[in-house]
């Protein structure tokens, strides 16, 4: 038993956090909050107590109550979720420290103390006005992105794609005649591309969107699925890097989901070489209100796999 557990000041003011089992290799845990379901101001104050002074200041600088709440929930979700994965003892979510890597990707800064083996956790968050999500993996980096299904762009979709997407992706989008379907496929592509860049963790400029292509590939050799038809479980999502065509970025595994009926969510994670190709990629999803409840929504209508070889 790690003696350090007893030295950590766990404030009696916080309800206990239910500990969590680490994801297994090639498994993703996805946690999300629906901000509209979190209205209790006492609870929001508790969340605020978890934050570092720096984080609290960032939250206060957000313009408007909804944006403040969103920023607060995002930090509370990350802190409580990661704290719950401590296998040896209960970690105080308030004492977690975060930093950014060289390129700005947030990561946990583990204390370098004797006998403390930090779990090999990786995480990434994304939020919209209606959802805050946090993806967690072990051993390998992860990137996630969520967008509201109803998201509209101010710019013309094809003009935007021509400016930022790869030629193949422009072709796929241009071939869609129904503007609503085109818009949906655009949003899906956007989330996948964002998730990939975030997984790589080197920033937008290191991997410009134009330099890689997302392809849907399935057994019938069609290149995309209309949303109405049922998606074959066999459909895979492939990332091809135009910078290095010999390496089709097969290091990275992507999946596309519909979450809570309202959002598209993309997950991208590095394949675990040690676990090997045989480890089936698994996904478990919870809707959560930190300190209050977790609802496992995997296998329900709240999580639909739209693409990528992943099982719930």
């Amino acid at each position, binding site marked *: 038993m790690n003696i350090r557990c007893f030295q950590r000041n766990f404030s009696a003011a916080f309800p206990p956090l239910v500990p969590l089992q680490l994801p297994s290799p090639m498994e993703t845990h996805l946690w999300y909050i629906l901000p509209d379901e979190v209205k209790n101001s006492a609870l929001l104050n508790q969340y605020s107590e978890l934050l570092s002074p720096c984080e609290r200041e960032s939250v206060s*600088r957000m313009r408007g109550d909804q944006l403040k709440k969103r920023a607060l929930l995002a930090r509370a979700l990350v802190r409580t979720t990661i704290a719950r994965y401590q296998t040896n003892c209960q970690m105080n979510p308030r004492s977690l420290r975060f930093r950014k890597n060289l390129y700005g990707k947030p990561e946990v800064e583990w204390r370098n103390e004797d006998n403390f083996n930090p779990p090999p956790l990786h995480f990434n968050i994304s*939020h*919209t006005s209606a959802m805050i999500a946090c993806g967690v993996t072990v051993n390998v980096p992860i990137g996630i992105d969520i967008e509201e299904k109803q998201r509209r762009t*101010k710019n013309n979709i094809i003009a935007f794609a021509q400016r930022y997407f790869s030629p193949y992706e422009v072709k796929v989008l241009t071939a869609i005649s129904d503007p609503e379907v085109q818009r949906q496929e655009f949003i899906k592509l956007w989330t996948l591309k*964002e998730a990939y860049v975030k997984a790589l963790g080197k920033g*937008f*400029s290191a991997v410009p969107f134009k330099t890689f292509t997302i392809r849907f590939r399935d057994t019938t050799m069609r290149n995309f699925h209309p949303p109405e038809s049922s998606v074959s479980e066999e459909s895979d999502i492939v990332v091809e890097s135009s910078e290095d065509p010999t390496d089709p970025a097969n290091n990275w595994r992507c999946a596309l989901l519909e979450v809570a009926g309202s959002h598209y969510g993309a997950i991208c994670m590095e394949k675990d070489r040690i676990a090997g190709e045989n480890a089936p990629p698994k996904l478990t999803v919870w809707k959560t209100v930190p300190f209050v409840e977790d609802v496992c929504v995997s296998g329900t209508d709240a999580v639909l796999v739209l693409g990528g070889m992943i099982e719930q």
Partner: protein
Amino acid sequence: MASLAASSISFQPPHALATSRVSGLKLVSFMNQGRNSLSFGLRPMPARVRISCAAKPETVDKVCEIVRKQLAVPSDKPVTGESKFAELGADSLDTVEIVMGLEEEFGITVEEDNAQSIATVLDAAELIDKLCSGKSA
């Protein structure tokens, strides 16, 4: 281009350099029109001296307008040079849309490494002015 124009100015500067930014603007647009004489009351300044490093007010205003529209900022909330996109609620798609809107408005191309460093309205305006003056040079 600016230095070329400065070297051809031969009259004495009678005025203070308070409005050097404005003179810079006129110099650039004047050169764009292809004329060579500088006969209408420009305040000359040595081209190597940058009196002000801030972006032009009109650029800042235009950026504010584009940002406000993209992020649907309510009219009672201020959007100024110091405004950070993230604090106004911009996510990555918003930011890219803003950059694209700025490219179209100002006729420039913003590379990804520049786009990534834009955090505030002022950052965007300064980059725009830099790219615009680079174009006409």
